[in-house]
């Protein structure tokens, strides 16, 4: 998935990493709390819209395309395997009988939308909270973990680039993972990963030596990036926290939740209340952007 980042001049780009992490924590929890198709659909579409606002429609469409294929697979498997409840459509071919149940379609769609929402929330998180922000956040409590996280993010990226190059160039050594029987492909993929690992370890050793040569590991590290907690962060966190408490309360009362999959998907007035609050949670960054612009000189 392509790495996309918000512009630092926007409201989210100016937020304190802790405020961002708290907001995204609430957002991810919210996504897990509700299983009503109205709410999950709203989360998914709202997050797609939010991503488009920050990263541009073209960049987001590339991500959504791959997410849609995953969502389609989940929907298809549910339609194939879930035959509970009322049948919407039946098909018989000789002795083979197949039916598409209403529950299969709706439950599959709910699960797909929930997963899609989760992925889009992660895309937004990835674009808003940079590695250096995470490091700055973790550094005071777990400096080694903070540095390890930064290195891991960089090396995963290098790993992917290296894998792509190997995929291309190892063909000159007779190692092709895209042709032949599946068993052969699996063996070849294993061989490719072995080469990838060997090469990466070799380079990582060299990098580690060069890190030491620049004083890494010598003494307690200081920190360059310091983020100041501002009034805007307090306001953002309080509003987001308040909404989260409301959402939790609604969830405790059983609003926006379908306890019985056979009752899918009657939309009650209570669900609309949850949808309203969920829209505010998803739209909070946009409200922040609006207020941030209003405050411009």
């Amino acid at each position, binding site marked *: 998935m392509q790495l996309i980042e918000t512009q630092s001049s926007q409201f989210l780009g100016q937020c304190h990493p802790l405020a961002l992490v708290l907001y995204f924590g609430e957002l991810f929890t919210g996504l897990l709390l509700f299983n009503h198709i109205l709410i999950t659909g709203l989360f998914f579409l709202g997050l797609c819209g939010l991503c488009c606002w920050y990263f541009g429609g073209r960049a987001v469409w590339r991500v959504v395309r791959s997410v849609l294929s995953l969502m389609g697979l989940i929907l298809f498997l549910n339609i194939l395997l879930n035959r509970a409840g009322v049948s919407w459509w039946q098909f018989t071919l000789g002795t083979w009988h197949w039916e598409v149940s209403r529950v299969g379609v709706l439950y599959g769609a709910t699960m797909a939308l929930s997963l899609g929402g989760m992925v889009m929330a992660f895309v937004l998180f990835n674009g808003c909270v940079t590695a250096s922000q995470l490091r700055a956040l973790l550094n005071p409590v777990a400096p080694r973990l903070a540095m390890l996280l930064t290195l891991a993010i960089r090396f995963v990226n290098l790993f992917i680039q290296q894998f792509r190059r190997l995929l291309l160039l190892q063909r*000159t050594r*007779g190692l092709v993972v895209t042709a032949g029987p599946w068993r052969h492909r699996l063996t070849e993929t294993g061989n490719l990963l072995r*080469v990838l690992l060997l*090469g990466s370890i070799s380079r990582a050793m060299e990098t580690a030596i060069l890190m030491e040569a*620049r004083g890494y*590991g010598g003494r307690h590290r*200081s920190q*360059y990036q310091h983020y100041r907690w501002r009034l805007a962060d307090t306001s953002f966190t309080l509003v987001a926290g308040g909404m989260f408490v409301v959402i939790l309360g609604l969830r405790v009362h059983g609003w926006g939740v379908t306890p019985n999959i056979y009752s899918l998907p009657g939309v009650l007035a209570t669900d609309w209340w949850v949808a309203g609050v969920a829209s505010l949670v998803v739209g909070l960054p946009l409200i922040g952007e609006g207020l941030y612009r209003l405050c411009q000189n």
Partner: protein
Amino acid sequence: MSELMSLKQVTFTYPAANRPALDGVDLHIASDDFMVIVGATGSGKTTLLRQLKPELVPAGDLTGTVQYQGRSIQKLSATESAQTIGVVAQDPVVQPVMATVIEELAFSLENVGVSASGMPGRIAEIANFLGLDQILHTPLQQLSGGQLQLVNLASVLVLHPAILLLDEPTAQLDPTTAQNFLNVLQQVHRELGITIVMSEHRLDRILPLANRLVIMEDGALLAAESVATGLRLMSQHDELASFVPAIPNFFVQQHLTGNQLPLTVATGRRMLSQQDVLFKLRSSTLSVKTFGAPLLTVAGVSFHYDQQAPTLRTIDITFATGIWVAILGKNGAGKSTLLSVLAGLRKPQHGKVRLGKQIIWKMKNSVLIRQVGLLSQHPIDQFTGLTVREELTAQSQLGNEPVNATAVTDWLAKLQLTAVADQNVFDLSGGQQQLVGLGLALITRPRLLLLDEPTKGLDPATKQVVGRLLETYRAAGVTIVMASHDVEFSAQFATHGTFMFDGQLTPVQPARKFFTTNFMATTAVSRLLRQWLQQALFSTDVERKGGANDQG
């Protein structure tokens, strides 16, 4: 000037090695030195450099002492070592660890505990000095090799070291970028007074900046003299004569060695004018080579990476059997992409590439390996992590005529890899990895050889060996398409030349015509003599008519 570092009777032997990599080396480095270490691959240059920084000292048996301002370097703390002895590696990609330029610069300062209030000033100073201020927030993965190497240099300079160690820092850069990097180094040396010690094969650009030349041979220090004295010693030494850059070498070859050897074209021209020497072309210079039927046909090929501007734009070209075409061009011009398309590894969006009559990306991979040999820009990506001998043996099994163990041993000798035959390919030096990559491309006996920077990291003597080896294959009918920044090598061995620019190739011309009509992308001797002899490319192309101050 005062002594900054010293090595006294340093002998170093790698584990399981039967002879020392460094043998009784005595060296004194003064604080105003710009020192260049030169020597053949395996002569001990990198091992010597690594002895100068405690964190870099490899595993092995070490005797003798290495001191920094009278203290053993082993007694320097990690912070002291980082703040006094800086190091820049050969491969620009290996050093960085952070995501953006500013984070990379801050990383060094954070390591040594510089306060948060002290960091911005130091970063601002070094970023402005090296011209990185406009790319401070750029992700490192978006930088070119040259920019990345500058960031590596900056991330060391930000610690205010007294001495900088550089191991062939321009080996991965194109000539223009390499020159820019060296200019920055000169600025660092002259304006900041930082001592510089670097190993390098390409001496033509670096020697005018240096004041001392250290010559290594088989682990021993042959000389540590002024540049002029060092050059004269090298020119008299059979195995090191090829290291002498083209301009001073021309004066040696033509017996014009007066008090000094010129290092630049301008100085060379002035000396020639003063000595009033006339030259004429040798009669054997303009030899004609013949070529066979078309082998590889490229018709209307266009290629672009995902959502990006075209890298290749409607390329039409035919490569005849037995031709050797050198493609010159800057980094990022599309040379490597073109070679990968020609190798059938990438399918262009438009156009066709035919090997004989077959479309190349439709050929079975096993057939393709027998027909086309590819040396990629990073040969390490073609390795499978075995020993040199095992890699060559495995590749030969995929070729037209699988070879036996004796033949593999012959190949090892041909490629000067016998000494490292049983070492893992990932443990070799850059130059040795390049030779293994070349061996992998050749051992299948292909009809078409595609070579991406084949001389990268090779010392001048090995380049000659590689050039002659490839020439025998070309003469036997192998077609060679080579992307290269190495103008001297291309002019010496290629039969034809072309430029890759703006996604297209300029018309392919016979090498002599191509290089003698180029203004900048031509040999040093051509640039030296063009006002007298337009056809000359090398010192062997000309002979003297006579001269007033002839000392030869």
